[in-house]
């Protein structure tokens, strides 16, 4: 208690430093979020922080200079002299600013500093990204057709179709294996398990080329099954390791009695182990799901450029490449792709954190 009180003095400093770090951490995402709701033209003209109240020069009254003023000579305005360049850039005079309003007409604007907010928000960016922008094309014979660009919605379903099985398949396969490693005795058990643990750190690049060759030969390229299997293989070592840690910790007598009652291993696994492992299953499943959802490299290689199976990360990467300056599309597309993982993150944060620590904090 004494220690806690002693540290109270530093607490303000700690809070401030941490607050600054958090602010810096949040800033990039905040910028993206705000920008995704701004009209396209606004994004390109002003920074996103301008949506907050800020001081800016506003046009005020204009002064008409006499026709005789030579613009190459120092120019007299209100008894003071300025150069042409100064007036071009704007000069501050007390709490006003002088700037050319129309150099040819010889009018100078006296701007005043005032609070301003740019509260223009729109949902158009999201609409365009989700449903695809409509393009009007004029054909050779003068008629017009409306063509719809591809939107993100198809990619969203594709990603979901890939991510859900690519989460459940490895978790199920790994749980069966983990159960066998923990509670069944069979030859080669140790060796096999150590090999799986070693696979934890193998870079997936090592496997990509041969898998691609096999997939091409088997017609698995660009198919759901192919990409599920790839994600399963790449996630399996970690999930097995994690599930083993959990399942091997379960008390033995728990299912010994079930075994005496004549239950088979399969029944024990489905009726007893799986329900008991729900917390562990949930945490590792969240982790695997986020990994698959956010994946880019694996999809890029095994899906290629077949538009009907493309996932969101590929679509957005394409957008970045082809429409690098269309910030209204980029920001809203990126935010849509973040929606699912962020929701999962905030809803299931507790499990997610547990899932991370399961494999890492021990001893």
């Amino acid at each position, binding site marked *: 208690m004494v220690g806690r009180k002693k540290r109270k003095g530093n607490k303000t400093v700690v809070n401030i*430093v*941490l607050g600054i770090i958090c602010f810096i951490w949040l800033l990039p995402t905040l910028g993206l979020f705000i920008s995704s709701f701004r009209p396209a033209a606004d994004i390109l003209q002003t*920074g*996103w922080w301008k949506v907050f109240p800020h001081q800016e020069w506003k046009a005020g009254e204009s002064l008409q200079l006499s026709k005789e003023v030579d613009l190459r000579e120092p120019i007299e305005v209100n008894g003071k002299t300025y150069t042409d360049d100064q007036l071009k850039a704007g000069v501050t005079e007390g709490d006003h600013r002088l700037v050319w309003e129309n150099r040819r007409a010889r009018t100078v604007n006296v701007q005043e500093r005032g609070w301003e907010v740019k509260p223009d928000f729109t949902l158009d960016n999201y609409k365009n990204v989700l449903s695809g922008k409509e393009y009007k094309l004029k054909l050779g014979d003068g008629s017009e057709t409306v063509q719809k660009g591809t939107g993100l919605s198809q990619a969203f379903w594709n990603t979901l179709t890939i991510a859900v099985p690519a989460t459940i398949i490895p978790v199920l396969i790994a749980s069966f294996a983990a159960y*066998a490693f923990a509670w069944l005795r069979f030859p080669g058990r140790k060796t096999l398990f150590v090999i799986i643990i070693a696979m934890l750190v193998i870079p997936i690049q090592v496997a*990509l080329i041969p898998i691609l060759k*096999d997939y091409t030969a088997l017609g698995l390229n660009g198919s759901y099954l192919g990409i599920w299997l790839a994600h399963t293989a790449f996630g399996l070592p970690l999930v097995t390791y994690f599930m083993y840690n959990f399942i091997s910790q379960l008390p033995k007598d728990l299912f010994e009695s079930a075994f005496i009652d004549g239950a088979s291993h399969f029944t024990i696994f489905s009726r007893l182990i799986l329900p008991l492992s729900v917390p562990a299953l949930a945490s590792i499943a969240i982790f695997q799901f986020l990994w698959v959802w*956010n994946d880019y490299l694996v999809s890029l290689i095994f899906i290629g450029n077949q538009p009907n199976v493309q996932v969101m990360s590929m679509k957005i990467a394409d957008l970045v490449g082809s429409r690098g300056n269309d910030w209204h599309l980029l920001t809203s597309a990126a935010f849509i792709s973040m929606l699912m993982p962020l929701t999962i993150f905030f809803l299931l944060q507790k499990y997610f954190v547990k899932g991370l620590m399961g494999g890492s904090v021990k001893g």
Partner: protein
Amino acid sequence: MSAQAKPRISMKAVLLSLLVLLANIAVHGSIFLFFRDSTLNPLLTAVFAVLWGVVGVYLIYYTFNWAVEQYPEQVRRKVLPFIFVGPATLVLGWLLILPALRTLYLSFFNASSDKFVGLANYAAIFTDRLLATALRNNLLWVFVGTLACVSLGLLIAILADRSSYERIAKSIIFMPMAISFVAAGVIWKFVYYYQPGDEQIGILNAIVTFFGGEPQAWTSMLQPWNNFFLIIILIWMQTGFAMVIFSAAIKGVPEDILEAARVDGAGEVKIFFGIMIPYISSTILTVTTTIIVFTLKIFDVVMVMTGGQYDTEVVATQFYRQFFMYRNFGYGSTLAIVLLIAVLPVIIINLRQFRKQGGF
């Protein structure tokens, strides 16, 4: 007694299990073909595919278990473990172990993998300027990225532990973990955005100009410093991971040891270096290895931010380029193997750590 001595395997059981095997192949094969050639509504396809993926796997186990149960107890006990670990072993063997060996084999062959070239590819990697840049950058990523993530993570974990809004702060720092690299790429492209002219819409350049500086093209023109601006993205994303784990470890340091040190008059800094760091050293090791492995494989950030241009190439992007653009299977495989060699020490450390923890 005599009934137990030798289990009789009935013809029926053998036939049934064969049938189950064939039925599994036939059913899953035809479903696969159906999806590959289907022109269904995407939403419907999604629902059916998910159903198949989820239920299908369980059914495989179920039917095989059922088949094994047709056999006598002794046989069942021997076969069952392999049904449980079989799918995992098959998938890993086919899609991870075997490919690694095949890649190793390919790395000794030329671009179109039809001529044996010995170690020529390996020699080329260390002399070719592009590939050497990739290696240099990867080292930069590993050292700078890991060091920053680990030390920042530790710092924030300790600050959060003493602050009054620990949970919110930790959520904020951890949040980028849930964001994909591609989306993070967009976020940071926007931060670093540069446009010639006076109005900057990228916040970094806006800050620089606010303080009277010149706006910069951070990720392209500032070579070789542009690599650091890419590494910052990794730091932003991975520090949360380190922080969460350190935070748990710090809370595990017994309070009475800390109290005793304080009574002896040790300052907070001394307590940190003298007690906390040694106490959580094994956690620091695990986190460091995890992040090193992760940074070695870094791909998405570079691909989205610069596409590997402006000397920001890393091994993984070079690998992608060699393989898919230049069709140089030899270089591609060699780069993958070099990555594997780079993580070998990490594998060994991990296995040793695992044994120390009493697993097996």
